[in-house]
């Protein structure tokens, strides 16, 4: 197969986020650096009858400047997360006001406005037609958050939403990279948004994929994932455009790749071949050999099978280095944001590269001798000389995606 032909180098010029650690990049980085988990008892909905009772819930009692805008009231939670993250990212990039025509939005989501829609369905499916409010369905579809961002910022270029389960956000960022590199757009707002809802909370519990305690990626005794919610956005532009207005890229998005296991609807290919193929495709896109990768932000859900398969994938790509390559497992702190996980972990990767430190996770259990990974524990790991990183997303149905980021300086 042909290698990618490099056209325009693509910068990450701004990032924004909402997560269980709070609204904004500031609380996100502070919490990541401290290794502080946001997974705790939550209040989004009554979970007394659910099998588990923890999630990394975004705080709703924090003041949000956008809440004064009359449009805010019509947005679902997932829409609000998305618009806030996009606003923060665009402000950081120095792009204020309506976006020009040569701009687009590439977004991912698993559930869109399902949280609000469950109110409607709770009435409608019981035959309580009058009390079921159609307005609760207005943002139900998974393309709603991406469309909300486009609408809010006056985007008239391409707008597209991916819903490929846990790889949605990463695939959206990859599609945005293509669009900027090819010159289809000059500015891409790329990200994802998901809010907690009962459908997925009960669904993953039905699969017995959820740990009753906070998830423990790659650790012994791990029993499954933890839930999270939020949004993350990256603004992508040609490097030259950022420099021309006196800005400085936060990082370079060097490559994106994807591949499918074609193995099973929920279980990963235990050989890790599909995940490895995605990483290798991303590195090929970036024109980068595996030896140049300084750390990996793993998918790391904490499920027994997924972590084991991901370890196999790392071994395939990095060979003997796999055991020494520093790994981050952001889901141990933010939970699994489902379709949005790839986007927020991309932002985490950019922040770690930018700050020259890899965030830790709590060493809450023993290492798994079957998975001799170098997971960063308890304290941030300095990254002297590290210039590139990979972020992986491995989804239901075997859809795997990987992104490669490089330091700008």
């Amino acid at each position, binding site marked *: *197969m*042909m290698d990618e032909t490099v056209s325009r180098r693509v910068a990450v010029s701004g990032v924004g986020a909402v997560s269980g650690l709070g609204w904004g990049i500031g609380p996100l980085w502070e919490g990541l650096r401290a290794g502080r988990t946001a997974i705790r008892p939550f209040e989004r909905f009554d*979970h007394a*009858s659910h*099998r588990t009772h923890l999630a990394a819930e975004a705080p709703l009692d924090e003041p949000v400047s956008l809440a004064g805008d009359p449009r805010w009231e*019509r947005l679902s939670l997932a829409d609000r997360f998305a618009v806030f993250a996009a606003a923060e990212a665009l402000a950081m990039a120095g792009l204020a006001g309506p976006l020009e*025509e040569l701009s*687009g*939005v590439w977004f991912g989501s*698993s559930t869109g406005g399902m949280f609000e829609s*469950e109110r409607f*369905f*709770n009435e409608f*499916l019981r*035959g309580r037609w009058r009390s079921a409010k159609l307005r609760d*369905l*207005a*943002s139900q*579809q*998974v*393309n709603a958050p991406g*469309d*909300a961002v*486009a*609408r809010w910022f*006056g*985007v*008239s*270029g*391409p*707008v*597209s*939403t*991916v*819903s*490929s*389960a846990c790889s949605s956000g990463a695939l959206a960022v990859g599609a945005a990279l*293509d669009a900027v590199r090819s010159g289809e757009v000059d500015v891409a707002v790329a990200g994802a948004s998901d809010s907690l809802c*009962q*459908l997925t*909370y*009960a*669904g993953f*519990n*039905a*699969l017995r994929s959820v740990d009753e305690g906070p998830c423990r990626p790659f650790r012994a005794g791990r029993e499954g994932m933890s839930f999270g919610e939020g949004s993350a956005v990256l603004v992508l532009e040609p490097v030259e455009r950022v420099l021309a207005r006196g800005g400085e890229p936060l990082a370079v998005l060097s490559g994106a*790749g*994807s591949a*499918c*296991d*074609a193995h*099973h*609807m929920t279980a990963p290919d235990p050989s890790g071949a*599909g995940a490895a*193929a995605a990483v290798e*495709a991303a590195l090929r896109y970036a024109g980068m050999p595996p030896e140049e990768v300084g750390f990996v932000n793993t998918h790391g859900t904490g499920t027994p099978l997924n972590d084991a398969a991901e370890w196999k994938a790392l071994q395939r790509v990095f060979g003997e280095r796999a055991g020494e390559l520093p790994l981050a497992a952001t889901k141990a702190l933010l939970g699994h944001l489902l379709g949005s996980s790839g986007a927020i972990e991309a932002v985490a990767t950019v922040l770690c590269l930018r700050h020259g430190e890899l965030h830790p996770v709590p060493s809450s259990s023993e290492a798994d001798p079957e998975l001799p990974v170098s997971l960063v524990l308890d304290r941030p790991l300095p990254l002297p000389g590290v210039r590139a990183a990979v972020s992986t997303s491995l989804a*239901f*149905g*075997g*859809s795997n995606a990987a992104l490669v980021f490089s330091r700008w300086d």
Partner: protein
Amino acid sequence: MTEIFITGLGTIGAYGSGAGSLRQALASSELPGLTEMDRSAGYHLAQAPRRAFLVDPALLREWVPPGEARRMSPPSRLAVAAARMALREAGLGEGLPDDHTGVAISTAFGPSSYSEGLLKQILLEGPESASPILFMESVANAPAAQIAIASKARGPSVTICQREAGALLAVGQAAGDVAAGRVPRALAGTLDEMTPLLHSLLDRFGALARNSGPDGTELARPFDRRRAGYLAAEGATMLLLESGERAASPLAKVRAWGSAFDPTAPAVGWGTGSAGLGRALRRTLDRAGISLEEIDLVVSGASGSRGGDRVEALLLREAWGDRPLPPVLAPKSVTGEYGGGFLAAAVLAAAGARFGPTIGFGQPDPELGVVPHDGSPLPPPSAVLVTSVAAGGAASWLVLEAA
């Protein structure tokens, strides 16, 4: 740039199974059979339309044996059936030659029946009643995953959800992957199932045609002054896209693809159709080196929707300006909205298929300034523009060429 060819087409809808069935329906301009929706759950308003374009489940058995079908949701069965059809037509019915096949599909609503079933369990019976089987097949990318498993397609796998604009976005995604050399071939298409719940909700949002035919039955009237909504449909269409050096006996060539957004559109409705859409379409054509004069046929996504058809017309008028439009086909009065019949019709149009008069059209709308094709014979087209605008603001397009 690598040339992209459509070498296989699989389609299933109310018109039947396979391109031949659809070709016949489009040429005759007779409505495929409309099926009564099950109203026993009580979801429908009294005045809601009673029928939709539904798939006869028996058509799937040839492509998805019962032993496989029992592990799939209805949309997954539709998707796998259409994918196998496309591969067989492309001469790959016995299996793909390697691991490098991508899958890019779209769905407007995802696996609706399984989602409904799961919500009933969780909300009405309690969370512990949630079925893992229903959950696993309720995610939007379940059909794409089932296609990949059934075909051993191990390239990129993407599911796009962008309402009515999704199908052409999926084709563009797949074409981009093949053009960039990531994979030598990709399955691209769209699918949706039409459930009583979904049908009733579309009606409650005012989207469906009610009693608009001469005998008081449902009829979609694309571009017509009297249009009052669309006919809902279910089905699946899959295309096999291959790079030029590998394509044999192609149906058509994918020459260009693009999209844009109307930020004046509300979440569940239509905007003013800003001039940005037409400019964006012109940019796509310019980047591909295609002049307006080369476009000798348009396949419009006009469905009979009052707002949607207005934006479809605005898009064409803004792009063409004062120049006369080429002939405009509006096949959704035959295929319905959703389920991919429109995408299949567009490919058939590029391959020179005969189209009859536009069903439902009789009175031009002076505000739109578009009169769809009257069924008179057309010369085989050289370049076909295919357009789709979506509720919520997205719009997408393709340019297909005769192979």
